[in-house]
């Protein structure tokens, strides 16, 4: 296929947390809000002259200091972020707004906080309690927490406009990005998609780590190009898969999967498009903060939602994606040492295989995938098993 417009620029933006787009926004006097989890609704972090940056640690090498502070049994993502903070990689942030969602990421942020790794004047960290169930009691709690630990500190410490009108504007900006990502993602439904899973993962991830206004024109160009982009003749892929699981903040994993023959046609992982880039539907009769929180609570697919209805919903959600995008199989992946996904992956793999009848690849992986031969072999074997299954049926 002809190169996707802006793909090199988008790839370049992913090479550094404090990338060109972030630097430009900082030069304009805007506030950079560090985020570590999708449980803090993104529109709240993009109010007024703020922009959110999801913390990542691209080009991670050694994690020795992170490992000293948090031991080798902790999630490598959390350790890598701490290491990057120790290296001074997050010095551009004005604050970190963190939920106490998973213990490991919480410890990472607390280490950054207590070790005073970001010395910028006025820098602060907030921690909030976010729901583990999806019901009205939890929603009320969620709204109160977001008001107290997100909106109020942003207003009091940085002077951010957190009025309903500002929230609506932020919501509209967010929806604009979400709509664009979903429209682009729609092309993955095609028999021979005119966008690869890797390309999609790059542009989707870029929307989490760059100011929204910077990224929107690029996405519009991509969408425009896709209308006429011709897929390559023939099909280099041997299977279509849904990628599910824990955070993927490096599209190399998707590239590796596709190089092994499995085209990623849909996704449901942290920093992917489902559910995080689904449009936030406004409803009448609720204040805008409640609407936003309701969306994140009801749409959320994180395994930390512990009630049975939500657990079953996660399986149904992946099944629906697999059907809509005509996937041949599902890949459940997790960063090693993640307790949430460790259990969810085992359980969901069983359910999807036995109750829904999908071939499932269930893997744990290091934070830095690179060109892992072991993982490549696992995916290749999975693709072959799908092919054998197709042949035998």
């Amino acid at each position: 296929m002809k190169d996707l417009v802006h793909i090199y620029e988008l790839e370049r933006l992913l090479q550094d947390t404090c990338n060109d787009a972030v630097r430009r926004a900082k030069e304009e006097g805007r506030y950079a809000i560090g985020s570590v989890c999708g449980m803090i609704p993104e529109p709240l972090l993009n109010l007024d002259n703020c922009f959110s940056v999801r913390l990542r640690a691209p080009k991670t090498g050694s994690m020795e200091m992170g490992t000293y502070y948090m031991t080798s049994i902790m999630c490598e993502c959390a350790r890598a972020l701490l290491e990057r903070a120790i290296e001074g990689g997050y010095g551009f942030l004005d604050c970190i707004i963190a939920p106490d969602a998973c213990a490991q990421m919480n410890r990472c942020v607390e280490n950054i906080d207590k070790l005073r790794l970001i010395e910028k004047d006025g820098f602060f960290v907030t921690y909030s309690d976010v729901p583990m169930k999806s019901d009205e009691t939890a929603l009320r709690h969620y709204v109160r927490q977001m008001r107290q630990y997100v909106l109020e500190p942003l207003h009091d410490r940085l002077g951010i406009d957190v009025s309903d009108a500002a929230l609506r504007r932020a919501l509209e900006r967010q929806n604009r990005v979400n709509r664009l990502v979903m429209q682009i993602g729609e092309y993955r439904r095609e028999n021979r998609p005119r966008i690869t899973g890797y390309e999609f993962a790059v542009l989707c991830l870029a929307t989490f780590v760059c100011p929204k206004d910077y990224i929107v024109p690029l996405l519009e160009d991509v969408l425009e190009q896709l209308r006429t982009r011709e897929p390559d003749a023939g099909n280099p892929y041997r299977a279509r898969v849904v990628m599910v699981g824990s955070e993927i903040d490096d599209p190399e994993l998707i590239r590796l999967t596709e190089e092994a023959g499995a085209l990623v046609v849909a996704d449901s992982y942290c920093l992917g498009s489902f559910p995080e880039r689904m449009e936030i539907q406004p409803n009448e009769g609720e204040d805008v903060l409640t609407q936003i929180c309701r969306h994140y609570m009801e749409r959320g697919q994180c395994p930390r939602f512990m009630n049975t209805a939500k657990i079953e919903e996660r399986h149904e959600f992946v099944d629906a994606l697999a059907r809509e995008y005509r996937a041949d199989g599902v890949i459940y992946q997790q960063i090693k040492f993640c307790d949430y996904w460790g259990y969810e992956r085992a359980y969901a793999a069983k359910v999807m295989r036995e109750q829904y009848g999908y071939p499932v690849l269930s893997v744990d992986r290091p934070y830095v995938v690179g060109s892992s031969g072991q993982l490549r072999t696992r995916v290749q074997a999975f693709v072959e098993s799908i092919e054998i299954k197709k042949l035998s049926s």
Partner: protein
Amino acid sequence: MGKAMGSEPLGKLYNGKKAKRRREWRGFKDTWYDYVHWLGIWGTLIKFMLHPANLKAFFRYRWMVNYLAVPDFFDRHTEGMRGTQLRVARVALELVVRDMCKSMSVMFRADPACGNDRALNEKLVVFDENMMSQIMNGFPNLKWVSVEVPAVYTCAMMAQDGVLYYLDAAQEYGIPNDVCPMPAAELGVALEGDYPKIGRCAVQCNTTCDGSLMGNGIMASRMDIPTFQLAVPIRHGEESVQQYAAEEILNAIDFIERQTGETFDWDAFFATMKRFNQETEQLLEWYDISRTPYPQITGNSLSLYRYAVYMAAGGRVQDFLDTDHRLTKLAMRGYARGELTAKEVRHRAITWGVQSAYYTAFGIWLQNCWGIVTLVDMLTLCSTRMIDTQDKDKAVYDLAYLYEKMIMRSRSNGGYEVGVADLWRFCESFQVDMVIMYAHMGCKSMSGYHGLFEEEARARGIHLVWATHGLMDARGVSRKDMRTEVNRYMRTVLREEPLDPSLEEIDDEMAW
């Protein structure tokens, strides 16, 4: 060999086999006391087994075999003790055994595979292992039961290989081996179908850690009874979460009411919580004694007993309050006589982090071998707030607070303030010079503070001694490995010689 503490080299008793070479000689009076109580434990176990449903259960459930080690458990947890110490340990832990026997008898009577008492089964509400039982104080016509406690938690304490079979079952299912073994073993029991199929309904909770709540999700799908998941706030130190915590408690009460047709009885609740408050008052007395040079109720005698009072009995059982008073009396007597808990108290310590279930007697070894007296442990240091017993609204908030401060989660959840900063406050309050820091290899919550613990302990001049373990899986880190870490610290950093050199290297690899 004699009545004085430390008069016999205790290491001689270990012979590399399941049971020790012989039982300890403590002088005539204490040996007689210990022997009579040892017989009493056998009596309790035999009486338990005489019930047909319990006998059936013994052959139905693989994990029941671990309870053959109960007498040995007592020997391990009274090792080297004399006088008041011995009596405190016996009085406290024997009540726990009797209470467990009662609870298990109820469970097996209702179990369709054993007693099949359907009427009783309709009255049972199954609670999550680490969850406080106090909600049930308002349902006097119903019975609280936890199937995971006897199947997993106490099994791992009785025998160091007690739950390995179930851990393997969970890993075979696909659960990674880096998660905490406790919820993994609990899930393993469910996967093997080794829980009694009992209860009208169940209440689970986001207890202790992320792994624990995830295991519950899978277990709920196998319980075949309506299950409510109680979401207790993680940031429990914050005032802002208390309203949600209280609302969730009311949701849980509402669920039980709807499932059982019973109505929450506030009078019954207040009556039992008054008892619970009195139990808390006794605990505070013991803490006060522990702050003096003559602590009396320490180590396992405090921790294992207190877990039962705080979580399981929850104010519903008068025996526990009576025993509390008895323990206080013993402790006051020991204090007045200036009795020490070890031959020589060289270090006053707190244990932090979760202790190893397969080596709960580690604290006993610390005091016998090195004179390190563990005054109090992290899991015991939960809430001591009194529950309002008059105002319903306040009581719900107090109850919610109690649930937030469940054992383990009160420290493993809630952030730096409760996980780290509180430790230094307790160190000051109990005037300790040493922290035995349990590094449970599957516990991400505490491991995330590893570097902070090191640096802050150093800054405060507190000796921080790591004791790495695998909670319920001794295959990765054995009891001996735990001791070796301490031995090295004591010899190389503190340059001390052991109180009882025979205990420095012992062979208990095959022991229960």
